């Protein structure tokens, strides 16, 4: 069965019309993953028996018109807990962890009767931009297996790009959905902070983390976000704002006519690859031709985002990761003589280098004598960055720019150089600091590697981003190009 060129709507139509069953689609998905994953290593674990059993139940009950996601396979990033299915956050410290509950986002997908086929690879605890800090395997870019898939949701992005699944969940603390989406030529949404419950997301930076969808098209992305969004009593930072049917207005009537778009000059500054710059300028022209205005604007403190972020995110991480102590769950070191040894040796043997680096940076930034100069200063700079966005979004409907300064880089190229790796996030990080929605979608190619465009909106205005993304898709063909891998094409 070839479902590679299908989207959620066409799969749903086929399932309702009984042209295929959920069991057939789910089996075809596993067959496809087994054929292609030796090349890209997107998955850490497959959920084959339970998924096929769930698909059989869904088939037996029948799929109705008003169940747009029922019976369709989905992949889940492995820092989102799944009941009874090993969840590792790609860390040795959680290698054997079996959650006893589902994250709200995965529970909502299960309620919509999506079929979880497996858990995708990531940077350990989502700390990284290349999926290379995973303790278990190295995921490759779907377009070129000598390149990184981006990160930290590299497994989810590669799984969608290679046609293994039509949709996957990722998480984004500083760009971890948008940058791998960009590197793999797929669509990724980092929703507004509070739009999606973080319950069951293994916490990294709690004031920054959001769960969001990765898909091949904008409309599919909107459909999944509507399914997972909404207030949750288990996450009191989740918003009680109403959740629109984000996909509803994505049709021929959708238009960007009259919209005002801001293009920050800092987003096309030195350090941004020439092909990336050209793709974004061409996209700006596309929007102008479609009746929008695109103005040059300024986010003057953008360059301080990386420093502020690595203080704030590392501080929150150092606090969140205190729970990994070798006592109640996770890895415990052997040959320990006392309780202090359990803590120190379990953590030192269980965490990888990048996680340790961040714990150290966070602990330092929060420690006596350094708190005011580092953590508090960063929290104030965060306010300044938020104010920059507010000023631009006051008279612009959204902001456009690149997702990352470059296309996907070579495997191993930046792993030993933390600062270079951190600077890759310069265009995505400020969006998390401000809690705004950010959409990444295909906008060009550079030497046969995808280039992504980022649209940044006002709080809780994902609708405008989806509309602008959908209109862009309708007027370009970047999203129709797919990697040749495993002979799907």
């Amino acid at each position, binding site marked *: 069965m070839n479902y590679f060129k299908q989207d959620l709507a066409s799969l749903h139509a086929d399932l309702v019309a009984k042209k295929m069953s959920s069991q057939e689609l789910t089996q075809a998905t596993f067959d496809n993953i087994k054929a292609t994953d030796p090349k890209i290593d997107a998955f850490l674990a497959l959920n084959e028996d339970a998924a096929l059993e769930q698909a059989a139940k869904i088939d037996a009950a029948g799929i109705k018109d008003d169940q747009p996601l029922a019976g369709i396979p989905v992949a889940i990033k492995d820092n989102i807990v799944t009941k009874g299915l090993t969840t590792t956050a790609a860390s040795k410290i959680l290698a054997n962890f*079996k959650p006893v*509950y589902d994250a709200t986002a995965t529970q909502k997908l299960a309620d919509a009767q999506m079929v979880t086929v497996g858990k995708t690879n990531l940077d350990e605890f989502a700390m990284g931009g290349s999926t290379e800090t995973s303790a278990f395997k190295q995921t490759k870019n779907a377009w070129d297996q000598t390149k990184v898939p981006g990160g930290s949701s590299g497994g989810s992005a590669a799984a969608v790009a290679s046609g293994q699944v039509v949709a996957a969940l990722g998480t984004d603390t500083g760009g971890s959905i948008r940058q791998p989406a960009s590197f793999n030529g797929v669509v990724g949404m980092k929703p507004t902070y509070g739009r999606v419950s973080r319950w069951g997301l293994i916490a990294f930076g709690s004031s920054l983390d959001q769960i969001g969808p990765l898909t091949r098209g904008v409309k599919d992305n909107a459909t999944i976000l509507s399914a997972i969004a909404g207030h949750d009593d288990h996450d009191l930072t989740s918003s009680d704002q109403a959740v629109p049917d984000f996909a509803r207005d994505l049709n021929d009537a959708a238009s960007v006519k009259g919209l005002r778009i801001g293009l920050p000059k800092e987003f096309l500054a030195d350090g941004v690859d020439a092909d990336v710059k050209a793709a974004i300028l061409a996209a700006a022209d596309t929007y102008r031709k479609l009746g929008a205005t695109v103005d040059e604007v300024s986010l003057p403190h953008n360059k301080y985002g990386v420093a502020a972020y690595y203080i704030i995110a590392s501080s929150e991480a150092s606090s969140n990761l*205190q729970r990994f102590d070798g006592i109640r769950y996770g890895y415990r070191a052997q040959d320990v003589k*006392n*309780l202090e040894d359990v803590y120190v040796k379990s953590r030192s043997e269980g965490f990888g280098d990048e996680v340790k*680096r961040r*714990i150290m940076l966070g602990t*330092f930034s929060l420690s006596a004598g350094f708190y005011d100069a580092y953590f508090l*200063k960063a929290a104030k*700079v965060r306010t300044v960055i938020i104010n920059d966005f507010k000023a631009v979004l006051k008279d612009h409907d959204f902001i456009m720019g690149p997702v990352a300064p470059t296309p996907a880089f070579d495997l191993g190229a930046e792993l030993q150089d933390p600062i270079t790796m951190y600077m890759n996030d310069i265009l995505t990080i400020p969006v998390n600091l401000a809690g705004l929605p950010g959409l990444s979608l295909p906008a060009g190619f550079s030497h046969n590697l995808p280039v992504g465009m980022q649209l940044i909106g006002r709080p809780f205005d994902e609708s405008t981003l989806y509309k602008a993304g959908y209109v862009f898709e309708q007027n370009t063909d970047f999203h129709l190009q797919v990697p040749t891998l495993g002979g799907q094409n």
Partner: protein
Amino acid sequence: MANRINRDQVQHVASLAKLEFTEAQLDAFTPQLDDIIGLFETLSEVDTDNVEATSSVSDQLNVMREDVADNWGQSQALLKNAPDAARGFIKVPAIIDESEDN
């Protein structure tokens, strides 16, 4: 190497974080952390006089709910994740360090 942080300080921060490093790891980590802290110090260029700190961007404030337990009664399932358990309890090594007990 600029001395924003030295080996002793790295060692001190490691003890706060309940981590330990070998000498070789300290040799590698100290200059890396020093470089990153140098990046952090660029924030001093930003004027933040009279600027409030942001700790959350949630639109929810002081959300109250009834304190009702849900999804409880799973102690057996939870214990399966414990590295060591017996008779319904998590087992740990001696909490009192006997080497200090004299």
